């Protein structure tokens, strides 16, 4: 009898994390896999979580940070995670090409989040000056954006040295390389601190007609088909959190730093502001946060097809589904 009590107690203890006080409605358990470690880039999700917006939407959400060895598309396709904030249009293309059953339900960054940075006092003033220079970049898509930009200036692969960029921007700071790739919200902060804002010159892909939307919200095809209301509820709560984070950046950073207190606050505040700009740019201004700007996605698709990053044209109507967003009134989506 005693043992049975003990077992029951142990069982209850083991299960108890899953039993939540019953609210007005039953909650659906779900997880969100981020594309990267906890940082202000994801502030809106943390605000929505901490303020209970997901619970109000009927979702008991757990946020799982990403990491260098994880591919969000795989985790969502395999069902390990319900929602994903994945790399971007590029990784969605790649996943769809591999027949991974994932669907993009929203796009967070409307503009290309990275730029190519040189020294303002250096020899590079225009794209044509890249000839013969050493460039480091990420070989996960940024390399093709750069190739596309340089092709417009009449440069081809052999005209410069392109190397994979490691974690640190220090080689650029130490003048070992001429051009470094930086996201506007992250590496650029480190560069500003070490080199100085006025000593940097940025080459922006969007200024050269290449827009490469990134940070895509994905779900599995099964979730999209069987539980569309949940996807819409998730997006609604997410947008609610983001609208607050964008209005009050400090509160957004607070929400992030309550989870990751060792982060550097000035860095996170800079990230909050810069990532916010990417979110409200382009089509999001008129159509609201997380808008899937079809012509831009199409252009990115065609660009990748032209550079043979993807081998065959993809069915973009199936890969990008705006219906979950469109179920939310536009007034609630505008930042």
């Amino acid at each position: 009898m005693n043992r049975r009590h003990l077992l029951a107690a142990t069982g209850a203890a083991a299960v108890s994390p899953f039993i939540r006080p019953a609210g007005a409605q039953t909650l659906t358990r779900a997880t969100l896999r981020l594309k990267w470690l906890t940082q202000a880039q994801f502030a809106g999700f943390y605000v929505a979580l901490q303020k209970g917006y997901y619970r109000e939407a009927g979702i008991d959400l757990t946020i799982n940070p990403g990491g260098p060895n994880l591919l969000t598309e795989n985790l969502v396709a395999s069902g390990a995670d319900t929602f994903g904030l994945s790399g971007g249009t590029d990784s969605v293309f790649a996943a769809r090409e591999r027949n991974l059953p994932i669907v993009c339900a929203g796009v967070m960054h409307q503009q290309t989040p990275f730029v190519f940075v040189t020294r303002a006092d250096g020899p590079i003033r225009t794209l044509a000056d890249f000839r013969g220079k050493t460039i480091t970049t990420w070989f996960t898509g940024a390399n093709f954006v750069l190739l596309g930009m340089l092709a417009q200036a009449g440069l081809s692969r052999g005209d410069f040295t392109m190397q994979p960029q490691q974690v640190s921007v220090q080689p650029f700071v130490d003048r070992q390389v001429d051009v470094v790739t930086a996201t506007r919200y992250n590496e650029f902060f480190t560069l500003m601190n070490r080199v100085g804002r006025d000593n940097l010159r940025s080459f922006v892909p969007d200024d050269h007609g290449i827009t490469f939307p990134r940070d895509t919200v994905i779900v599995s095809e099964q979730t999209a088909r069987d539980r569309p209301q949940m996807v819409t509820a998730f997006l609604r709560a997410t947008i609610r959190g983001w609208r607050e984070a964008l209005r009050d950046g400090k509160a957004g950073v607070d929400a992030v730093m309550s989870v990751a207190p060792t982060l550097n606050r000035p860095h996170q505040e800079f990230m909050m502001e810069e990532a916010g700009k990417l979110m409200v740019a382009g089509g999001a201004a008129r159509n609201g946060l997380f808008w899937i700007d079809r012509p831009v996605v199409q252009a990115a698709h065609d660009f990748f097809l032209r550079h043979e990053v993807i081998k065959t044209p993809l069915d973009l109507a199936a890969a990008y589904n705006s219906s979950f967003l469109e179920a939310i009134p536009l007034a609630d989506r505008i930042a």
Partner: protein
Amino acid sequence: MNATAMAALRLLGGVILAGLVWEGVVVLFGIRPHLLPRLSEILAAIAFTPGAYWAGLQRTAAETLIGFAAGTAVGIVNGLVFFRAPLLRDMLLPVFVVSQTIPVIAFGALVVMWFGNTLMAKAVIAFYLTFFPVTVNTLLGLNSVDPRQAALLRSFGATPTQILFRLQLPMALPQIFVALRLGASLSLVGAIVGEWFGDNTGIGVLLLQAMYNESVVALWAAILCAALLGTGFYALVAWAERRIVFWGAEQ
């Protein structure tokens, strides 16, 4: 003053000396902070958010200990089974060897799919790195027992179980402890690598965050925590070895 207290004092003196040398060298040679920050700066960073480091230390310690304990238990049982059933050894040991050739990074991605972002996922990776050396060393230790000693006990009427627990297992202990000391550091590596697959708490998370934010002070703070944990755990295993294998193994 007894010998243990003296040894502890000497150790403390050494640590303080190393700290002073670190601080002095950085100041004296003007080493740039993003190459090597001053020790005092690192300690100040830990003191600024002690909760995060303490929580990380506890979490990683728990993952390490669970993985290590499971790896030790399974490894010793494996060793015993393989010792008693050579056929099974010939069938399974090669499979174990193959399992160990899978890079832990590749294995980690799978573990996340299977177990999610749980403490158990990290413990499984720690286990994965620990159980193999323990298996091999247990088998090695058991095989190195002089068969004539076993024969002698048997002639006195000892049962196989008695021979195992009174002769073979004790004789194998020095070998097993070699694997345990190895496993102490391996299981910590496993837990930290496991935390690189997306989590909120742990020394590995702090390491990763600091690395990708290029926050060198935070990176060193996490390294110090990992070193503290690794050294502490190793010392614990070494202490257990001295107590259990009292007849003197290699120290």
